[in-house]
């Protein structure tokens, strides 16, 4: 009787302490699979190829992380609102899903250092003489009404006191107007600008410069308490930049040019 109670106690103790010692990083390595939440309707970060397999910057990033851990990657498709619930309910281990590192979200989940930053680019009609973003001064510019870049552009036009700002209903209208010469220049995210220039639907436009707006920094997320995993991923992101893989993925999915700097000037981390 005594032994069975002791055995029972030992079993109970192992059951209780077992999960507490092995942290998430150990769990991932021992399970042999890294489950990443990726948003697959957000090209070029995540989409599906002609065979309906996941592809994109985030998908490659997840595969790289899995390779670094020595496990296989499993891409779990989520939508933007489902990213954090999927993580919290244990359906995924990490989210590689272009998540902006807001303080509000950091109350729920743990963020790594930024692994990508969405910058804004100035795109101009080829017939317009422009070399830097400051040449926007005095030009006829436009953007999709109500967006972050439209508010910034309109503010600049007001500040300069010359030139004209025209709001449009959607992004396609802006680029059509730009291609037809109704607009001299516009500002949009680099990814949208690259995609529109590459698509060939809007002839006669070129990317001039990056706009000096604060980039939208995005980070990998894991559960808040999984500090060991977050620590590992911070180093992983550092290595991705150091080894040139970051620039390689940028060239593969976004386009030519320098990828956004992940260093925020004037502050640690």
């Amino acid at each position: 009787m005594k032994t069975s109670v002791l055995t029972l106690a030992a079993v109970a103790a192992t059951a209780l302490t077992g999960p507490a010692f092995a942290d998430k990083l150990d769990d991932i390595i021992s399970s042999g699979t890294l489950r990443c939440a990726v948003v697959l309707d957000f090209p070029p970060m995540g989409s599906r190829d002609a065979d309906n397999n996941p592809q994109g910057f985030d998908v490659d990033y997840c595969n790289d992380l899995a390779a670094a851990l020595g496990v296989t990657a499993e891409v779990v498709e989520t939508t933007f609102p489902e990213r954090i619930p999927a993580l919290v309910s244990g359906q995924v281990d990490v989210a590689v899903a272009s998540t902006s590192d807001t303080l509000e979200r950091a109350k729920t989940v743990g963020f790594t250092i930024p692994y990508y930053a969405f910058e804004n680019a100035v795109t101009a009609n080829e017939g317009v003489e422009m070399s830097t973003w400051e040449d926007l001064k005095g030009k006829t510019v436009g953007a999709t009404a109500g967006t972050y870049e439209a508010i910034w552009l309109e503010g600049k036009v007001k500040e300069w006191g010359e030139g004209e700002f025209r709001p449009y209903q959607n992004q396609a209208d802006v680029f059509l107007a730009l291609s037809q010469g109704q607009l001299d220049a516009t500002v949009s995210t680099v990814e949208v600008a690259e995609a529109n220039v590459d698509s060939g639907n809007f002839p006669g436009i070129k990317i001039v410069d990056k706009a000096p707006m604060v980039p939208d920094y995005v980070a990998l997320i894991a559960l808040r308490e999984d500090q060991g995993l977050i620590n590992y991923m911070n180093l992983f992101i550092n290595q991705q930049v150091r080894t040139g893989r970051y620039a390689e993925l940028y060239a593969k999915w976004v386009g030519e040019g320098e990828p956004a700097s992940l260093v925020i000037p004037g502050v640690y981390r």
Partner: protein
Amino acid sequence: MFDTALTANDFLFLAKGAGMTIFVTVIAVFFGTVLGIIFGVIRYQIGPVWAAPITFVLDIFRSIPLLIQLVLAYAFLGTVLRLGLSGLTVACIVLTLYTSAYCAEIVRGGIEAVPLTLRRASRSLGMTWGQDMRNIVMPLATRVALPSWIGLALGVMKDSALVYVVQVTELLKSTQILITRLQEPLLLLMICGAFYFLISFPVARFGGYLEKRWSND
């Protein structure tokens, strides 16, 4: 309208999704029916008072939306018990229990529809309980229960669309993936609807055929 970016490859992808829908449905309906018969017979046999615990559990499966059952079961089995089951396994387990809860009611209703006097007569002829169940109750109850059971099977087939929440890519999820990529929702939803129809129509017709055949003898 016929100018579409849909390729043969995508059709194959949809067919794979349809295959998954059929697989999950067949598993759930088969095991759900077996469990449903067991639960239904037990409930009838031991009376409403003693069966209260079973009734209560089955009522839980019938009253909580399937979507919530799937998410909670996946989170519980995966995060709390750390069983490491695949989404497909969880989907099959939950859908089976869900089916069995409905099936138990159908079975109970079927058994209750057999006149008690007839069963007493069979026992008076010296039949054992098992013989009575097999030779008297089962043939009669099956006839009564068949239409509801066919309805249940078709319902489960359509409800299986919800297993996408546990990462099972069945027919509707495959369609949504294609819609996201090709931006042709109307065409794709029509194709998806046609697939569902192709799966359920034969089942419904087979049910009708059995009903007709059995009603003659």
